[in-house]
C-alpha cells in the first residue's frame, strides 16, 4: 500500500511510532497529486511550501517526544469555498479568480490548532451551486472510478481527491447534498453535521439556513476524528449551537442491536436506479443480521422538498452573492461609465450561467407580488417537512436511504436544470430539517460506487456514526480502491 492509501488514524499511529515522518507523508501525497491530478483535476490551488513547513514543525514536535493530535501532520484538502488567510479563494468562479482570502475560517483555525497539514484548495461547482462540479469556471473534475464520469458536487474535488489518494482527509460543504452525494459517487464517507454544529464563519455563504461544513474521508473513524476538531460553538457565527462536543470516536462501537432503522418509502421512488435499490436492500438485510430492526415509515411531504429547496436556497443566495460587485474585491470590468454599469458587467462576466440562473430565481421569488406565493409558501412547506421527520423520529432512531437515486453519470450528460435538480431528492430534505446525515459506501452498480445515507435526530451524530461504523466494519466496501487508486 502506498502511504497515501492509508487512513488518518492509521497514519497517526505511524507518525507517533516514528515509522514515518510527516514530511515524508506530505511529499508522498504531493507526488501522487503530480502523478494523477492532470487526469482527475481535483485541485485548484496547491500550497506546497506552507504544507512542508508545517509538516516539518510536527516532525520536530514528535522528535521532542511531545503529544500530537490525531490530525497533526496528516495532510488534507480544503474545498475552495472555505477561507484560508493568505491563500487564493475562488469558489471555482471567475469573479474570485485572483482573490486572496484575508482571514481564516473558524474551522481552519481549529484545524491549525490541531497542527494539521493543508495541501491546497479543491475544485467545486461554482459557489457550490451544482451536483457535478461541472459548473466550475476553471476545470472539470473527473471521477477516479471512471474518468469519463462526474465526481458529483458540489464538493467533487474534495471527494475525488480522497478516492484518488490525493488527500488523506478533506473538508467539503453541504447545502442540499454537496458532501454526501460526491462521497457516494467516489466510494468515500461524507458527513453533513446537524445545522449549527460546525461554524459557517469563513465558509462562503450559498444558502445560509442550509449550509454546513463537514468531512469527506476514507472511513467512518476518520470522519469522527475530523468532526472532533471542527465542531463547536463559534462566537463569530450566531447560528452556531452552544452545545458540548462529545468525543465522536466514543460512538464508534459495533452495536446495532435493537436499533430501529426507518425506511422512508418516498426516498425509494420511481427515479431510483434498480441497481442502487439492490445495494440498499442488501444493506437492510445486513443490518437485520446484525440485530437492528427495519421499520417502514413515511415522510409524506418529500415530493415537495426539491422545489421548496430550489426556492429557498436561491432566494438566500441571491442576497448572499450580491456582495460580488467589483467594488471591494474580485473581478471588475474596467471600462465602465458608472458604478451600476461596472457592477452589472462585472457580475455578468464573472458569474457562470448556473449561478446567474439561481440568483435570478432567488430575486424573482422574493420580489414584490411573488413573495407570498413562492418564498413564504416554501418556508411553510419547510415547516411541514421538518414535522414529518419529528413524527418519524418518535418511532425510529435513524433513517436509511440511498444517498443518490443514481450512481455517478457521464460528464457533460446535458440534462436540463430541472432534471438535475430532481436528483437531489434524497439529500435535500436533510438540510431542510437541519439534521445530521452521513453517506458511506454500500456496494457497486456497474463498477461505480453506491452510497447509503443514514439520517439522525438533531445533534445525534453519535447514533448515526455508530450505525455507520457497525455496517462498515461488517463489510469491506470502505477498503475498495478506485482503479485510478494505487496498488493495494
Amino acid at each position, binding site marked *: 500500500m502506498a502511504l497515501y492509501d492509508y487512513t488518518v488514524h492509521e497514519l497517526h499511529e505511524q507518525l507517533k511510532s516514528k515509522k514515518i515522518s510527516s514530511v515524508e507523508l506530505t511529499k508522498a501525497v504531493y507526488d501522487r497529486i503530480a502523478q494523477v491530478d492532470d487526469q482527475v483535476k481535483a485541485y485548484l490551488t496547491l500550497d506546497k511550501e506552507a504544507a512542508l513547513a508545517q509538516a516539518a514543525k510536527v516532525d520536530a514536535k514528535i522528535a521532542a517526544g511531545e503529544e500530537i493530535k490525531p490530525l497533526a501532520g496528516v495532510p488534507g484538502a480544503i474545498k475552495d*469555498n*472555505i*477561507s484560508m488567510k493568505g491563500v487564493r*479563494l475562488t*469558489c471555482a468562479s471567475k469573479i*474570485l479568480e485572483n*482573490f486572496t*482570502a*484575508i*482571514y481564516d*475560517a473558524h474551522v481552519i483555525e481549529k484545524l491549525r490548532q490541531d497542527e494539521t497539514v493543508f495541501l491546497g484548495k479543491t475544485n467545486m461547482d461554482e459557489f457550490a451551486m451544482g451536483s457535478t462540479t461541472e459548473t466550475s469556471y476553471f476545470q472539470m473534475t473527473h471521477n477516479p472510478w471512471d474518468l469519463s464520469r462526474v465526481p458529483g458536487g458540489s464538493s467533487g474535488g474534495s471527494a475525488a481527491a480522497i478516492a484518488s489518494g490525493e488527500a488523506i482527509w478533506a473538508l467539503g460543504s453541504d447545502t442540499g447534498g454537496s458532501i454526501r452525494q460526491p462521497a457516494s459517487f467516489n466510494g468515500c464517507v461524507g458527513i453533513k453535521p446537524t445545522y449549527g454544529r460546525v461554524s*459557517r*464563519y*469563513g*465558509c*462562503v*455563504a450559498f*444558502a*445560509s*439556513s442550509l449550509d454546513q461544513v463537514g468531512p469527506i474521508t476514507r472511513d467512518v473513524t476518520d470522519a469522527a476524528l475530523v468532526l472532533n476538531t471542527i465542531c463547536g460553538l463559534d*462566537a*463569530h*457565527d*450566531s*447560528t452556531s449551537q452552544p452545545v458540548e462536543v462529545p468525543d465522536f470516536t466514543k460512538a464508534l462501537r459495533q452495536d446495532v442491536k435493537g436499533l430501529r432503522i426507518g425506511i422512508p418509502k418516498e426516498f425509494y421512488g420511481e427515479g431510483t436506479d434498480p441497481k442502487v435499490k439492490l445495494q440498499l436492500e442488501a444493506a437492510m438485510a445486513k443490518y437485520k443480521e446484525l440485530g437492528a430492526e427495519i421499520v417502514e415509515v413515511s415522510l409524506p411531504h418529500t415530493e415537495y422538498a426539491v422545489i421548496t429547496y430550489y426556492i429557498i436556497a436561491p*432566494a*438566500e443566495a*441571491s*442576497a448572499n452573492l*450580491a*456582495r*460580488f*460587485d467589483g*467594488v*471591494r*474585491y474580485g473581478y471588475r470590468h474596467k471600462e465602465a461609465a458608472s*458604478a*451600476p454599469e461596472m*457592477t452589472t458587467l462585472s457580475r455578468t462576466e464573472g458569474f457562470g450561467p448556473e449561478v446567474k440562473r439561481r440568483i435570478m430565481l432567488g*430575486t424573482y421569488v*422574493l*420580489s*414584490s407580488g411573488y*413573495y407570498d406565493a413562492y*418564498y413564504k409558501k416554501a418556508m411553510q412547506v419547510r415547516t411541514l417537512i421538518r414535522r414529518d421527520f419529528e413524527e418519524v423520529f418518535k418511532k425510529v432512531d435513524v433513517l436509511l436511504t440511498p444517498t443518490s437515486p443514481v450512481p455517478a453519470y457521464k460528464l457533460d450528460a446535458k440534462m436540463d436544470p430541472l432534471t438535475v435538480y430532481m436528483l437531489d431528492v434524497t439529500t435535500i430534505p436533510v438540510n431542510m430539517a437541519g439534521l445530521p446525515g452521513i453517506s458511506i459506501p454500500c456496494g457497486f452498480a456497474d463498477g461505480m460506487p453506491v452510497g447509503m445515507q443514514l439520517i439522525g435526530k438533531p445533534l445525534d451524530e453519535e447514533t448515526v456514526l455508530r450505525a455507520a461504523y457497525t455496517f462498515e466494519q461488517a463489510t469491506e466496501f470502505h477498503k475498495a480502491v478506485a482503479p485510478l487508486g494505487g496498488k493495494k
Partner: protein
Amino acid sequence: MKNYITVVGLEVHAELKTKTKAFCSCSTEFGAKPNTHVCPVCLGMPGALPVMNKKVVEFAIRAGLALNCEIKNFNKFDRKNYFYPDLSKNYQISQFDKPICEHGHIDIRVGDQKKTIGITRIHMEEDAGKLVHSGTTISTSDSSAVDYNRAGVPLIEIVSEPDMRGAAEARAYLEQLKAILEYTDVCDCKMQEGSLRCDANISIMPEGAKEFGTRAEIKNLNSFRALERAIDYEVARQMEILEDNGHVVQETRTWDDANGVTLSMRSKEEAHDYRYFPEPDLVPINLDNAWIEEIRQGMPELPAARLERLLKLGLPEESAILIVNTKEMADYFDEGTKHTKDVKGFANWMLGDVSAYLNTENLTIKDFKVTPDHLAELVELINKGTLSSKLAKKVFAEMLKGNEAPQALVKKLGLEQVSDEGAIAKIVDEVLAKNPQSVADFKAGKGKAIGFLVGQVMKASHGKANPGIVNKMLKDKMQ
C-alpha cells in the same frame, strides 16, 4: 385659491453611541483615516457573518421608553436588498415587519399651543459607508471613493405619524425628539456631523378633504432651518401644481440648501423593490420584561421631568424651557446651581450674556470655556455686593479668555466694589463741589439731575463705588 392643510411626517435616523458597530466589534470612533475601523464582517468579505451587539438593543429600548413606545418582546431582523457602493453586502440588515418599538408619542409646544405627535415605530438597522466624491456634488463627479469606517454603525430609525401640520410643528417635533435622545444619552445628535438625520414626508390636502394628498419625500435636511425652509418651499411647490390641476408625483426629492429648492432624485429605474426577507444569519431576540424594566429604572432624567424640577425651584416657565431645551444647557445649570442658591440669577446669566456670547461665536455650551462653578461664583460676588453688575460684565469678558476664577480676577483688576462710606463720602463731596449747577438743579426739583451726579461719582471711583450707597449719600448731602 383654496385653503390647503400641510401634512408632515418625519423619519429620523439616529446613530447610537455604542463603542462598537451593530454586527461586528469594530470601533465606531469618529474621524479615523478611511478604512481603518474595518473587518471582514463590515467589509462584506466572502464568508463573514453578523453578530448582534447587545448595547444596540439596550439603547433602542431606552429610546423607545423615552418616546413612550410599546417595547416588542419578539424581535427579528430582515435583509433589505439593493445595490449601492457604500453598502458592503448590497443588503442592509434592518427590521421590516417586527420593529422593536411601536405606538409611541411625544408632546411638543409651538408658541402657547401644546400638541401630541405620534410615533409609529422605531427599528434597529446598520449604517452604510461613506462616499467621497471626486467633484463637488454626486452628479458632477467622475468617480467616488468608499470609506467603510461608518459601515455597520448602529442606527435607530424613528418614524412619526403624519401628525405635523406645518414647518413650525415639524421643527418643534425635531427639537424635542433631539432633546429626548440627548437626554437618554443614546445618541450625540449632531445634525451637522450626521449622527442625527432627518427626512420629511410632505403632502398637502384641501381643507375638508378626507384623504391625505400624495406625498413627496425630502432628503438632505441638515439643520432645523433647512427643515423649515424645505417644508415651506415644498408646500408652495405642491400648491402650485394642484392649483394648475396637476398631480403631485410620489417621489424622493433632495433639498438644495444653496438655492432654496427641492429637486427630483428620480432615476430612470423603477422604484426600489427591496425584497425584504428574514435574515438567516441572525436568530430572534426575545426581550424579557425584567430587562426592559431594568432599563426603565436606569433611565436618566428626561426633559419633561427636568422641566418640572426647574419649575419647582422657582424658575419662570420661559427660562426653564430654554434651559431644558438641550441636555448640555440643563447639565450646566444643574452643575452651576450646586455652587449658588440664586437659581434665577444663574439662569439669567446663562440665557443672557452666556447665550449672547455663544451665538456670536457660533458655539454650543459644550465648548464654553467658563465652567459652571466659576459662573456661579460671579453670581455670588454680585449678590454679596462685592461686584456691581456693570463691572461684573467686565469680569465676565475676562473670564471668557481663560476661565480664571472671578474672585481672583476682581482682586487682580482691582475691581472690588467700594462700600466703605468714608471713602465714598470723600468722592461724593468732591463731585458736589465740582458740580454746583447740578446741585442747584436738583434742589430746584429736577430729580433727574441726581443721575448725572451718580455718574460722576461712579466715574471718579472707576465704577467701584456701591451705587446704592452713592445715591443715598448724594440725596442726604443735598438736603
